[in-house]
């Protein structure tokens, strides 16, 4: 299988499900010359159809539920879901709010959580590196 190639070229689609933009800016920071994720072949793409990794920020508001499920279905297999920030992982400060249907793992299967409010770019890069491990496990399963 060519999952090796997948490891060296993870394309990331970033979906904001009602986040405050804190995490979003840290994700953009990972693309800047200081962190430069493109050297690992990681690229931010504009559409879920091109993506391998779905990067989700925000606690999932009621309006975003349908869109989140739709975008998740639009990402072609094999795919990995990474949640960035406290809100998406647990609800954070918005825990049990009336207008939330999250956290994200109530709606779709999540592979990696990156906690923090917001997490540092290093943590986000580490989270995407963890996503490689899931793909590695998938490959082992295929070989068996």
């Amino acid at each position: 299988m060519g999952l090796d190639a997948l490891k060296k070229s993870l394309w990331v689609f970033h979906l904001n499900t009602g986040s405050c933009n804190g995490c979003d800016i840290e994700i953009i920071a990972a693309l800047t010359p200081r962190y430069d994720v493109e050297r690992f072949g990681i690229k931010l793409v504009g559409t879920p159809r091109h993506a391998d990794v779905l990067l989700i920020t925000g606690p999932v508001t009621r309006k975003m539920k349908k869109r989140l499920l739709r975008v998740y279905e639009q990402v072609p297999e094999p795919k990995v879901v990474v949640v960035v920030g406290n809100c998406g992982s647990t609800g954070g400060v918005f825990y049990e709010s009336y207008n939330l249907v999250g956290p994200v793992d109530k709606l779709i299967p999540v592979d990696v959580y990156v906690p923090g409010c917001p997490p540092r770019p290093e943590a986000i890069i580490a989270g995407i590196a963890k996503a490689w491990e899931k793909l590695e496990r998938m490959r082992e399963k295929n070989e068996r």
Partner: protein
Amino acid sequence: MIEFIYFGLEALIIILLALFIALLFNGIERKLIARMQARIGPPITQPFIDVKKLFIKENIVPDNAIPWIFNAMPLIALASSLLVLLYIPFGGMPALLQNYGDLILVVYIMLIPSLALAIGAFASGSPYASIGAQREIVIMISYEFVLSVIVIAVAWLFSLAFPQANAFSFATINEHAIWSVAGPVGIAGLLLLFISSLAVMPAKIGKLPIDIAEAKTEIADGVLVEYSGRNLALLHMAQATRMFAFASLIVALFLPWNLSNIFSLSGTLALIGDFAFFLAKVFVIMFVSGIFVSAASARLKIDQAAKCYISFIFLLSLIGLMLIGLDIML
């Protein structure tokens, strides 16, 4: 029959080599752009890894797409951009199909990838893709004037200099440098045409100042929005090949000099030397008009780009044509 197989084999080798070189140049391009932005950048082999990955991804055809058009267009885009390379002479080597087509045909075939991209986008049923496709076609209409002016100028010069030869044929163009058949005023005109052909490059390949059709941050990759997996891999290869093919066309028209004539090489050495020199020329053209410009500039709006091509660059090429006409009349 044997000839036929030999012919096919030769075409296959050229196609595979061209695909390899186009992707390699794409990798070098990404690395160079990263360096210009003070980043480390991906390894040079990154486009190969990307394409390999895309081939193992799931290939999704949206529900409201027209499947056969949606799936056929990436293939047509790749095939037509590779086909161009069979008509263009690589360095000293005559082109494989040079007796079967000429400059006009090449300019027409170079249109097909853009058209295929637009048709595939319309067939995908996504509003983003539809906006992208409309933009692609507007841009195509605006730069096509410039290309036709260049073709007219080149053919005009050659038809007067060599009345017996076929002025549109790549055999004629490859044999004589175009600069040698024009007088001083004509050379000034050719220079303007050369500059305007370089200006067409970013639009032809959809690179940064004119990447309006696939504006990533604005209309979610535009024409490519619904493509995934195998189709996207084909389109990526088509984009890379299109850039290589157009740069080769500019080199074949305006920079036809070979190393073997200068250093009086012969045999295999001449062939290799000429080919390497040809690649170097192609890379310089790509760097000047594609890579450097796209690293240094921001995206234009569609009306700005169309106005720029239809008025300014078209005017530049028309002045070039007039200077050549003046030169011929003198």
